[in-house]
């Protein structure tokens, strides 16, 4: 085989080195994430989780509980909606400042970009935990936390979407004397509106999940109810709450699809660009936002009073200077490593499971499974996996993997659907078995998309892995939760900075990998 150098595959050496390097990097990460599948089948754990799951049936349907559930659901929806309204108000001016769209000479705005990175880099749950300390228990903390984090995310993605569409129409308008705002409105928005709208709705869906999660730190809503149910090991209540999540997420999904189709309908032959659908959506947004703020009854006046400002100032001052002692840095370093391990292991497990579930011939019965996995937030999964395998990073990895499988499986299925069908068909016609035709014909076409989705998801997961520790799943979150509970703010500050740096580093690594593998 190795006799003739001309016959040797020139790519083989690179592939071998790549595979070895991957193994060398992944092995210690799997160690750090404490992956021990045997824990799943450990007698004691098995008994706990079986008892708990058996308790799921029948789901709790008592009138009193349903009353609480209804109220908590409304509160969750209201927190998500109010938070997203706040985020939107923050994101529009920031995206305008940060984006190169509509500028004749492309300029990057480093100040705004850095601000966006900080807003996005600190997970909403951490903001919520801090705001709960300042404003006390209640939805205000959740709304503000969502507003800040999602404001940063929306601004970044809005800016990128506007940059990615064809710039010629906006440039032409500027050459005829239009200013930048009008050039964007007339030249770029029509191209980007569908993408912007569906991303915003998608974020609203995420905000619902996030507001559920923030209940775990006392910000109200379904999360608080779930937290109580889990602490009492009340499976029936947990089951009803999980079903409610699914209904919420499925409805948001359906709404998003309807909106996308509505944006695709050709306009009617009349001067006004707005029809009954636009009116309906506009009215729903206004009514929903107003109702949300009224329901939550957030005293924004009190939040922005002089006294509140002073207490915020004092509180923030306690975080400085961060504790940079060698001891503490070592523990934080270990937390960083563990968090990284959770995110990598969780994402990889999900990528494998998601791909299997997305494979064409299996798809139909599995799409429901994927949606179910996706509709339950990672943190809620973590409370369940912690019962199944015990507290620690493995529970975190599993929780991340379960939720991410739902997300990636769906995206993979779409990518495989959109991959050019001709190469696979040609192979099948030439007599190749279906599986091989898939590997040789379909997969190569879809691979760049699959890799991009996986890496983007890893960027999301590193943020999530950082907070899974709040329910005992290891990593930086666990450190932060302890230190904040003990009012060790200088130590907590170090952890938050570490989270921020880690998320920035992962963003960079992911961008580099996308370039290298794309």
């Amino acid at each position: 085989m190795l006799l003739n150098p001309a016959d040797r595959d020139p790519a083989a050496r690179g592939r071998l080195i790549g595979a070895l390097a991957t193994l060398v990097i992944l092995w210690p990460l799997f160690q750090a994430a404490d992956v021990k599948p045997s824990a799943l089948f450990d007698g004691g754990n098995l008994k706990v989780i079986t008892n708990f799951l058996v308790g799921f049936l029948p789901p709790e349907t008592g009138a009193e509980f349903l009353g609480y559930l209804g109220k908590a659901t409304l509160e969750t929806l209201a927190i998500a909606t109010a938070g997203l309204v706040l985020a939107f108000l923050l994101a529009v001016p920031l995206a305008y400042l940060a984006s190169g769209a509509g500028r004749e000479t492309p300029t990057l705005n480093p100040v705004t970009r850095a601000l966006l990175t900080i807003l996005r880099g600190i997970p909403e749950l951490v903001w919520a935990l801090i705001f709960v300390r300042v404003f006390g228990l209640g939805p205000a903390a959740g709304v503000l936390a969502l507003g800040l984090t999602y404001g940063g995310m929306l601004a970044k993605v809005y800016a990128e979407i506007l940059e990615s569409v064809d710039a010629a129409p906006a440039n032409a308008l500027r050459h005829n004397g239009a200013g930048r705002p009008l050039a964007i409105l007339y030249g770029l928005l029509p191209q980007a509106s569908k993408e912007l709208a569906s991303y915003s709705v998608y974020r609203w869906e995420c905000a619902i999940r996030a507001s559920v999660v923030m209940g775990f730190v006392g910000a109200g809503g379904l999360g608080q109810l779930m937290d109580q149910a889990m602490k009492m090991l009340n499976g029936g209540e947990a089951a009803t709450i999980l079903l409610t999540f699914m209904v919420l997420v499925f409805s948001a999904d359906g709404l998003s699809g309807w909106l996308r189709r509505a944006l695709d309908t050709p306009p009617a032959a009349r001067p006004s660009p707005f029809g009954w659908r636009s009116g309906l959506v506009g009215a729903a947004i206004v009514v929903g936002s107003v109702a949300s703020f009224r329901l939550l009854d957030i005293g924004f006046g009190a939040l922005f009073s002089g006294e509140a400002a002073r207490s915020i100032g004092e509180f923030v001052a306690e975080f400085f200077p961060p504790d940079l002692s060698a001891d503490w840095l070592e523990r934080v370093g270990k937390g960083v490593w563990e968090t990284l391990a959770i995110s990598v292991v969780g994402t990889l497990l999900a990528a494998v499971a998601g791909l299997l579930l997305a494979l064409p011939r299996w798809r139909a019965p599995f799409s429901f499974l994927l949606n179910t996995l996706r509709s339950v937030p990672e943190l809620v999964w973590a409370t369940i996996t912690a019962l199944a395998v015990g507290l620690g990073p493995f529970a975190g990895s599993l929780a991340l993997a379960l939720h991410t499988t739902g997300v990636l499986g769906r995206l993979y299925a779409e990518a495989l659907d959109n991959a050019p069908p001709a190469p696979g068909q040609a192979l099948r016609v030439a007599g190749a078995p279906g599986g091989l035709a898939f590997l040789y014909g379909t997969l190569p076409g879809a691979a760049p998309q699959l890799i991009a989705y996986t890496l983007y998801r890893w960027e999301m997961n590193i943020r999530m892995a950082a907070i899974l520790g709040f329910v005992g799943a290891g990593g930086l979150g666990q450190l932060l939760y302890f230190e904040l509970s003990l009012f060790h703010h200088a130590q907590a500050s170090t952890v938050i900075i570490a989270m921020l740096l880690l998320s920035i580093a992962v963003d960079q690594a992911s961008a580099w990998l996308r370039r290298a593998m794309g």
Partner: protein
Amino acid sequence: MSFALHGVGLTHANGFRALCDISLRAAPGERIALIGPSGAGKTSLLSVLGTALAPTGGLAEVLGFDQNFRSTVAFKALRARIGSIHQAPPIPGRQRVVTAVLAGKLGQWPAWKSLASLIYPIDVAGARAALERVDLADKLFARCDQLSGGQLQRVGIARVLYQQPELILADEPVSALDPALALATVRLLIADAEARGATLVASLHAVDLAIGNFSRIVGVKGGCIAFDLPASEVTVPLLHELYAGEGGELPVQAHEPHFLSQAAANGAATRAACC
């Protein structure tokens, strides 16, 4: 004087010299056709006149403005007086025809009017009148991605008709139209410019279309002006020299390449679907 270029040069960032030492003047109301082989610098010349590109050498004056000096307010006002027609119309596919036409006046309207027009088109009658002149009045409320390449090109022309600029710069304005429609459209542009005393500079691929309709012909080759003559003085040998290296045949209307509209690639889809 409508515009005057004094020894204008344009060197792109990658070192490519698109224009070298161009001197060209036009009086208000003149109608000039630019002809020359592809890659000669016709589009670059129009871009400099349209203030889209700043010359890297020499002096460009347009409508009394010294272009090399760019002050924002006066500069915007200048740009509002220039109308550009592009070979590939820069109009978003999802925009409605009426909005695309009204966008011609964004540089002239106050901001509140432009914003209000997004909610309800301010001047439907004006847009319809402009579209009627290019035979597209029935498409007033259609969306631009429902139009053919030729129809979209005529929407771009209607936008400039609606803008009523003092200087019309047309870059291959009829490349997507069949010969009969191309001739009618070129005549429409000339008639519009004539009626308003506006200056018209059009680059044309088809030599017969240029010589048959324009009074002044400027031949461009290799980033320089090869000749600048009244149409009556342009001779066949002169044209053959201009197009030497293009296969010996002069480009006329029957050889117009068909216009292909291209879908805008959307890289944001991946990102948005995932995060």
